[in-house]
C-alpha cells in the first residue's frame, strides 16, 4: 500500500514568512519574548482549564467523540456524493455554488463577485479558509478593502499583525497592548477609539462595538466561512461568541461564503454531535452564544458559496494523513500543547499553527521549504493533542508518518545509519559500549554541532564503566 501520495499541494498563506526560517529558529526567538510567554501561559492555561471542566461534566464525551470521528470519516469517504447533494440543495434554495480548485481560483471568484456588485468594501466574519487563501490581500490588490469584524481579528488587522491562534487570533496580545492598538490605529480604519480609553475588557469591547457598528450599517457585501455545511438541506452553520458574525450574515445585500470541502456533514441530525463537541472543546463553553444557520438566499439577499479544495483532495488520497480533514478547528490541541504554549502561533509560519497545523500545513502546502519540513518535528510526541481532540485525530502518528517522508540533514542521516549498524548485532553494541566506557573521562562537557543543543542547558549523564550486558555476563546475572 502507498502512503506517499501527497496530491496537488495547495497554497496556504505564509503570513509574512519566507519559508526559510525553520520552526526551531522562529521558536528560539519566541521563547525569549517574555511578554508573549506571559500572555500565552495565561490564556492557554485559562482555556485549558475551562475545557477540562465542561468536557468532564459530560459522561458520554468518549461516545460523542467517537460519533464525531465516525460521521466525519463517513462523509470524507463519500465526499463526492455529499458535495453534489449540497450543491443541489443550495441551488434549490436560491444560492449560487462555485467550485475552486486552489487559492488563486477561489480569490478570483470572490473578487469577481464583489466587483460585480460595484462595491469596494466588504465586511468579514472570522474565517480560517479565507486566511488560508490570503483573500484579504487578493482583494486589496483589486482595490477592495476587507474589514475584519471578529474582535480578535480586528485587533490583528488594526495592529498590522498576523493571527497566532485558530480561535483566538490575538491570543499573543494582552489587554494593554490591545488598548494601544485601538488608540493608535482605529482612526486609520474608521471611527477612532473613544477618548481616555482604558484597558478594561468592557471598555475595549465598547470601543470595538462603536467602531464596527458603523461598518455593519454601511457595507453591502459580506464574506464568511462556515463551521459546518449540511448536505441534506444545504444549510451553512457559523458558531461565534460576539454576534458580529450574525451582523455580517444578515445585514449586507450580498453574502459570499468560502468553505473548505471537508466541512460537510450529511444530515441536519449530525449537527447534534458537533454542536456539543465544538463549543466545549473550543471556548470551553457548554454552548457558544451565537449559532447562525442559513439555507440558500433569504429574500432581498444574494448568496454565493465557494467550495474550496486547495490541496484537500490530495490529503484525502492519503491513507493516514486524511484524518487531518476531520478537524473542526476547535483549537483544543493548541491550547493543550506545551510546544505551542511556548512558541506561540507565528513560529509555525502558517494560518494553521499548533499540533493540527504541524500536520495540516505540510500536507496542504507540501514539504518543499525548510519551514514546512521542520513542522512535523515541532512536537515532543507527548500525545496531549490526541487526547483532547474531539474528533480523535491521532496527531502524533501523522507527525511520525510525515517525518518519515521528510528529507533529513546529512549529519543526522550518518548518525542514524551508524546507530542502525550498531544495533544490528549485539556484539557491535557491546563493543561500542566498552569503547564508551573506556573513553568516559574524555567526553567533553559541551558537545559539538547540533548535539550542542543538549549541552547548552543540560549536563550529560556520566557514562558507566560497565554496561548492563557486560555486568550480566561477568556476574552471571548477578548470581556471582
Amino acid at each position, binding site marked *: 500500500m502507498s502512503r506517499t501520495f501527497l496530491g496537488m499541494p495547495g497554497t496556504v498563506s505564509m503570513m509574512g514568512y519566507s519559508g526559510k526560517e525553520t520552526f526551531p529558529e522562529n521558536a528560539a526567538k519566541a521563547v525569549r519574548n517574555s511578554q508573549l510567554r506571559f500572555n500565552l501561559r495565561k490564556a492557554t492555561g485559562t482555556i485549558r482549564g475551562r475545557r477540562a471542566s465542561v468536557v468532564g461534566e459530560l459522561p458520554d464525551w468518549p461516545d460523542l467523540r467517537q460519533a464525531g470521528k465516525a460521521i466525519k470519516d463517513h462523509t470524507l469517504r463519500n465526499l463526492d456524493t455529499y458535495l453534489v447533494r449540497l450543491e443541489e440543495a443550495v441551488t434549490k434554495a436560491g444560492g449560487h455554488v462555485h467550485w475552486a480548485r486552489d487559492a488563486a481560483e477561489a480569490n478570483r471568484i470572490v473578487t469577481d463577485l464583489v466587483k460585480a456588485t460595484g462595491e469596494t468594501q466588504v465586511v468579514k466574519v472570522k474565517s480560517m479558509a479565507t486566511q488560508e487563501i490570503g483573500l484579504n490581500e487578493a482583494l486589496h490588490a483589486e482595490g477592495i478593502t476587507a474589514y475584519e469584524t471578529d474582535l480578535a481579528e480586528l485587533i490583528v488587522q488594526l495592529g498590522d499583525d498576523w493571527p497566532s491562534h485558530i480561535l483566538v487570533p490575538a491570543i499573543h496580545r494582552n489587554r494593554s497592548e490591545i488598548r494601544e492598538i485601538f488608540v493608535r490605529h482605529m482612526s486609520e480604519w474608521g471611527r477612532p477609539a473613544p477618548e481616555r480609553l482604558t484597558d478594561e475588557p468592557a471598555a475595549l469591547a465598547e470601543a470595538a462595538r462603536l467602531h464596527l457598528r458603523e461598518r455593519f450599517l454601511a457595507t453591502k457585501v459580506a464574506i464568511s466561512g462556515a463551521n459546518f455545511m449540511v448536505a441534506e438541506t444545504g444549510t451553512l452553520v457559523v458558531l461565534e461568541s460576539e454576534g458580529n458574525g450574525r451582523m455580517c450574515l444578515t445585514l449586507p445585500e450580498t453574502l459570499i461564503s468560502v468553505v473548505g470541502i471537508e466541512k460537510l456533514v450529511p444530515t441536519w441530525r449530525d449537527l447534534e454531535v458537533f454542536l456539543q463537541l465544538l463549543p466545549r472543546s473550543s471556548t470551553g463553553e457548554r454552548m457558544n452564544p451565537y449559532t447562525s444557520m442559513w439555507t440558500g438566499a433569504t429574500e432581498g439577499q444574494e448568496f454565493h458559496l465557494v467550495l474550496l479544495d486547495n490541496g484537500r483532495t490530495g490529503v484525502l488520497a492519503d491513507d493516514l494523513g486524511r484524518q487531518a480533514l476531520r478537524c473542526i478547528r476547535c483549537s483544543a490541541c493548541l491550547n493543550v500543547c506545551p510546544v505551542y504554549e511556548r512558541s506561540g502561533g507565528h513560529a509555525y509560519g502558517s494560518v494553521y499553527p499548533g499540533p493540527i497545523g504541524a500536520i495540516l500545513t505540510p500536507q496542504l502546502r507540501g514539504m518543499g521549504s525548510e519551514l514546512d519540513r521542520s513542522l512535523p518535528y*515541532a512536537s515532543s510526541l507527548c500525545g496531549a493533542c490526541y487526547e483532547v481532540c474531539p474528533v480523535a485525530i491521532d496527531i502524533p502518528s501523522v507527525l511520525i508518518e510525515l517525518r518519515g517522508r521528510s528529507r533529513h540533514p546529512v549529519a543526522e542521516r550518518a548518525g542514524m*545509519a551508524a546507530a542502525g549498524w550498531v*544495533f544490528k548485532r549485539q556484539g557491535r553494541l557491546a563493543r561500542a559500549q566498552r569503547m564508551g566506557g573506556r573513553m568516559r573521562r574524555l567526553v567533553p562537557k559541551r558537545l559539538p554541532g547540533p548535539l550542542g543543543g*543538549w549541552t547548552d542547558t543540560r549536563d550529560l549523564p556520566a557514562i*558507566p564503566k560497565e554496561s548492563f550486558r557486560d555486568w550480566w555476563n561477568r556476574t552471571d546475572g*548477578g548470581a556471582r
Partner: protein
Amino acid sequence: MRVALFITCVNDTLFPDTGKAVVTLLRRLGVDVDFPEAQTCCGQMHLNTGYRAEGVRLADRFVTVFRGYDAVVVPSGSCGAMVREQYPRLADGGAFPGAVAEAVADTVPHVYDLSEFLVDVLGVTDVGAYFPHRVTYHPTCHSLRGLRLGDRPRRLLEQVRGLELVPLAGAEECCGFGGTFAVKNPDISAAMCGDKVRNVLDTGAEVLCAADNSCLMHIGGTLTRQKAGVRVMHLAEILASTEPGDAREREESR
C-alpha cells in the same frame, strides 16, 4: 513462567543500575528473569525521527528475540509504548512480512512495563522496599498516555516504607525531552524543562522519580546544571532499595 528483561539500549548503555535494580527486585519477589543477549534497541529513535525502514528492522529483531516469553518486562515507558502502540500500527500498515506480523501479534501482548508486571501479573503493590526520603513522581507522557500506567507507580511508591510521596504540580505536562526533539528544538525543550524543574523544586522533594530514564536524563541533566540539589531515580531503583539486612532476612524466611 518464563520472564525476559528488555533492558532497552539507553538503560543498557547509560543506566545499568536500573537494570540491576529490576533484576534484584524481581528475584526478591521470586521471579527468575532471563536476559536474551541478542536484544539491542526497540527502534523508537529511528521510527520517531523519520527513519522508518531502520525502525521496522529493529522491531523485527525485537519480536524475533522476545517471542515465546510469557512476560517481557520493560523498565521504560517510551520503549514499552513503542512496542505496544507502534508495532501493531506498523503491522496494520503492512510494514512487516506475514511471519513477522504474526510474531508481532504473538509477542506484543506479553510486553509489560515494570509497574504493570508487578501490580497486574504478580499482584503486589508492597514489594518490601525501604526508602526513607521525600519523593515526587513524574508520570512521563508515554507511560501516562501511551501505556496508560495510571496509578500503578503511585500505588507501588505508597507502599515503600519510609518514603514520603509528595504531589507534583503540572505532573501530566511533558518535560520537553521527546527524544531527538530535545536536540532539534533545544529552545522549546529547555523552556518546557524549566517549568518542570520549577514544579519539582516547589515540592521540596529530595528525589524525582519516574519510570523512564530518558526523561530523567533530560530533567536530571537540567537539575545538575542548575546545581539544584535534587537527584533523579528510576522507579525500579527505589523499589529495589531495602533496609540494610532486609534482603538476607527475606532470603532466610523463604
